[in-house]
């Protein structure tokens, strides 16, 4: 009876797996035809040793040569080798963080045991590690293999690779923490032929990933007590006599495959009805965070809904949200196709929108990275930055414009302000259009790639309009999904949809480091009869004044601005200045005095580095300075009393 059952299970197993790999029907997407070019087809059989946090696997990769020329050299990523002390990744970590000390528990490795090429034999001995970015001989994150004969354009080549992974404790994105394992960047991944060359960067401290679309058939064998989540959809699962179970997954039109396993995961599922069909939302929560499952499910549903309506459909049948355990937050906040990691803690108050920000952001990457698969090594702003902008827009809509970052104890902050303050910290250090690993440091990378890009796009709304920018993003998504667009593809799409030449803006904002800062250099009303002695007494509405306002462009960034002047007779004058000169002067002779002058009265130019100098109110109000000084003084009083406790 037992053997019969096992036999039936095996039949079902191979039936499902065979159906999936034949490509006859789409099992992982809600599309009846392939959505991408499917350059690669990975089939991986992996067995996890949960006790030793290691994995042995056999990978079969069928690569279709669509490069337009014969290829005899193939480079591969081995990302796990970055977690070694002499790697470029760790060098850069130490460079940017003096306090960082290497610990052996972080050590991880991916070792290719053998590499065979169908029809060409065993090429294991041909493997050579290369360091195209910095020449670091100790970096083993990229290897290449030269074939004895080239693969013709249009032909396919089949690699069979056996490899062994040793995971380290989570340092960044991948690894283990206690019983939790995040299997990311875990298999040898072929690089991308892009713009006429192999694009294969080493794994850097600030870089993420770039790969070709294709299919993934992955069979994971893990202990039976493990709860597993993975990219794609689950096809079948069977228990093995040795206490393990094997789960088969299929991913289509994706460019990476990640999985996670932990016995303690609590699973929650729900369905979202998208415009291309139903999407299963699967949450893997920590036991201590079960009370927050609703919160995660709600923001995931709202994100799916907003993206579907605003930018385009989510075509996959499943999305998995992983909640990493405490101490593994470095594995959190990370995106993989159809799976992402969020992050929370037991004490996370409802008013702290960290859960919403991280979940929305990482889901957003399903679009900006997952489907619009830009080169994260070279143009990180195209995924992180655009995603930060859409995060602002969606969270503003869901959580309120002024409270999207947090709302707690009468304090609040918007997500836009958080992005803007990030940008302000590093505004002139690096241009957005810079390779991710070439930024001055990690902080500048984050501030510019995320903060500045979001702020630039928020400012662009002022130029072309909110709706036009939304339409541009939708066009960009629909046009370039399942491809590898460049920054110019993105910028040209905006120009095309808006019907405007925006080079003046992009050259400064995207390719440059100029600061945008305008201020009021002078604002005063002087009596026209100033020279008369004695002067007639002032009479409101009768005395003539000459009002002079000088608007100054402090920064080098040229941007047209509106200037609003208010007079004490209730009149408001709005002027437009192209900002080309360093300053401009407005002069009015009126029977009214100036009350205030304000640059950018709609507060639409988020790129302006200093909002405080954008206006001048003639009648000053010291409330703010007094308040702040009081708070400062109270803090000093408090500290004084604490110090006096020692007397």
């Amino acid at each position, binding site marked *: 009876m037992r053997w019969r059952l096992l036999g039936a299970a095996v039949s079902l197993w191979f039936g499902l797996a065979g159906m999936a790999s034949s490509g006859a029907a789409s099992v992982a997407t809600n599309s009846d035809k392939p959505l991408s070019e499917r350059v690669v087809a990975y089939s991986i059989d992996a067995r996890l040793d949960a006790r030793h946090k290691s994995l042995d696997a056999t990978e079969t990769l069928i690569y279709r040569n669509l490069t337009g020329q014969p290829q005899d050299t193939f480079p591969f990523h081995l990302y796990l080798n970055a977690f070694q002390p002499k790697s470029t990744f760790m060098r850069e970590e130490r460079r940017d963080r003096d306090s960082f000390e290497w610990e052996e528990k972080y050590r991880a490795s991916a070792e290719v045991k053998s590499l065979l090429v169908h029809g060409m034999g065993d090429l294991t001995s041909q493997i050579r590690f290369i360091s195209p970015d910095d020449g670091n001989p100790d970096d083993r994150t990229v290897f290449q293999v030269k074939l004895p004969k080239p693969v013709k354009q249009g032909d396919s080549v089949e690699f069979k690779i056996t490899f062994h992974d040793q995971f380290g404790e989570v340092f960044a994105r991948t690894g283990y923490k*206690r019983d939790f394992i995040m299997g990311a960047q875990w298999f040898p991944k072929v690089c991308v032929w892009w713009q006429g060359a192999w694009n294969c960067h080493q794994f850097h401290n600030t870089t993420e990933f770039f790969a070709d679309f294709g299919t993934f058939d992955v069979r994971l064998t893990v202990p039976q007590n493990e709860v597993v989540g993975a990219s794609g959809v689950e096809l079948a699962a069977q228990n093995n006599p040795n206490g393990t179970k094997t789960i088969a997954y299929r991913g289509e039109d994706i460019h990476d495959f990640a999985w996670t396993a932990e016995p303690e995961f609590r699973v929650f599922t729900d369905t979202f009805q998208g415009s291309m069909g139903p999407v299963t939302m699967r949450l893997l929560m*920590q036991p*201590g965070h079960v009370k927050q499952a609703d919160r995660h499910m709600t923001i995931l549903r709202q994100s799916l809904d907003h993206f579907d309506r605003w930018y385009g459909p989510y075509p996959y049948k499943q999305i998995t949200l992983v909640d990493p*355990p*405490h*101490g593994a937050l470095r594995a959190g906040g990370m995106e993989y196709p159809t799976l992402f990691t969020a992050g929370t*803690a*037991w*004490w996370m108050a409802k008013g702290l929108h960290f859960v919403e920000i991280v979940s929305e952001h990482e889901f957003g990457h399903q679009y900006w990275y997952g489907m619009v698969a830009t080169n994260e090594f070279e143009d990180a702003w195209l995924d992180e930055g655009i995603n930060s902008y859409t995060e602002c827009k969606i969270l503003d809509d869901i959580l309120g414009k*002024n409270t999207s*970052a*947090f709302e707690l*104890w*009468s*304090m*609040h*902050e*918007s997500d*836009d*302000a*958080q992005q*803007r*303050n990030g940008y302000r*910290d590093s505004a002139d250090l690096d241009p957005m259009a810079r390779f991710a690993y070439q930024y001055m440091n990690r902080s500048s990378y984050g501030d510019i790639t995320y903060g500045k890009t979001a702020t630039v796009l928020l400012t662009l709304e002022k130029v072309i309009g909110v709706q036009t920018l939304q339409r541009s993003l939708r066009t960009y998504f629909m046009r370039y999904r399942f491809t590898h667009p460049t920054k110019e593809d993105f910028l040209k799409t905006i120009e095309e949809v808006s019907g405007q030449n925006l080079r003046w803006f992009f050259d400064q904002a995207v390719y440059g480091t100029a600061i945008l800062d305008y201020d009021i250099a002078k604002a005063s009303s002087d009596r026209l009869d100033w020279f008369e002695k004695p002067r007639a007494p002032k009479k409101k509405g009768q005395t003539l004044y000459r009002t002079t306002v000088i608007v100054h462009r402090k920064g080098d960034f040229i941007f047209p601005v509106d200037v609003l002047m208010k007079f004490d007779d209730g009149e408001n004058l709005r002027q437009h200045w192209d900002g080309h000169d360093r300053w401009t002067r407005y002069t009015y002779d009126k029977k009214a005095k100036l009350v*205030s002058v*304000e640059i950018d009265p709609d507060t639409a130019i988020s790129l302006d580095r*200093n*909002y*405080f*100098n*954008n*206006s*001048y*109110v*003639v009648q*000053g*109000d*010291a*409330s*703010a*300075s*007094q*308040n*702040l*000084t*009081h708070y*400062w*003084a*109270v803090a*000093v*009083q*408090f*500290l*004084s*009393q604490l*110090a*006096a*406790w*020692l*007397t």
Partner: protein
Amino acid sequence: MINHSSILAEGARRVWRRQRIVWWIFAVNLILAFASAMTLVHAIGDVTDHSLAARRLVSGFDWGMYSELLTTPDVNFESHIPGSGSAVLVFFIFMLFMTGGILASYGNEYALSTREFFANCGAFFWRSVRLSFFMAIALTPIVIGGRALLQQAGKAINDAAGEKTGYWFALLAILLTLFLMMAVRLWFDISQVRAVVEDESAMARSCLQAFKVTFSNFGSLFWIYFRISLLAWLALAVGLWLWIRLSGGFAIVMLEVVLLCWVGTRMWQRASEVAWYQSRLIIPHSAPERVLSPALEPLPAPLAAESLPPDE
């Protein structure tokens, strides 16, 4: 058995009767802090007084705008830290100087004249300095140990199997460190009281004697000290709770009330310690006599009549 409530009540009575001390300390604290912030008000005022954006700093607490102001080079908050640090230091020295006078005031049934008060301040200043130095030595291992415990707690927050384990550990580490610091503070409070009450000039000896007295009566003394501390922390919590709900001038006044409470409760601790110390001395009751020397009177009759601590 000693009646703690009576000691607390006696301490409160003495603070109330010598409330000028509290007001003066509070005033000096306030003036020093505001004087140190004067340069800041100009620096912030230059940026905010004529700016429409500054309105967002007044209505509600927009953290984004505060962050923007904090990082505006025109204000440069960091440049104001040394000035305010000096205010903290001056207040520290001021309180060190005042200790002798404060304890003498709380130890005497009659009100000291200004001259008497400052004579006591001067007479005990260097003794207070020496005691502070000894206390710093006693506190050092506690601070180092507390820091080490907190580091371990930080590791436990990441590594322990239970998510809350590390937080509990951190809380325990903080409570233990605070408890030990309070115990040392209590010991040196009694050293200071002893130095003033008994006009002790050998501070090392005073420390040793106070150590014996404090830790042989630790339960009762700590209970007195702790209850008043609890009240101070409660005042802070309630004050902050109200502060969040108030705005403008009311919010500022609320914070000042909290700080006044802190001065008051600390003086209450001091007065209660003096009362406690006097209650354990067997001194024949005699009529109060005005003195200029830093000697103190015995406790008034009703309190002195109460029983001694059990271990005496």
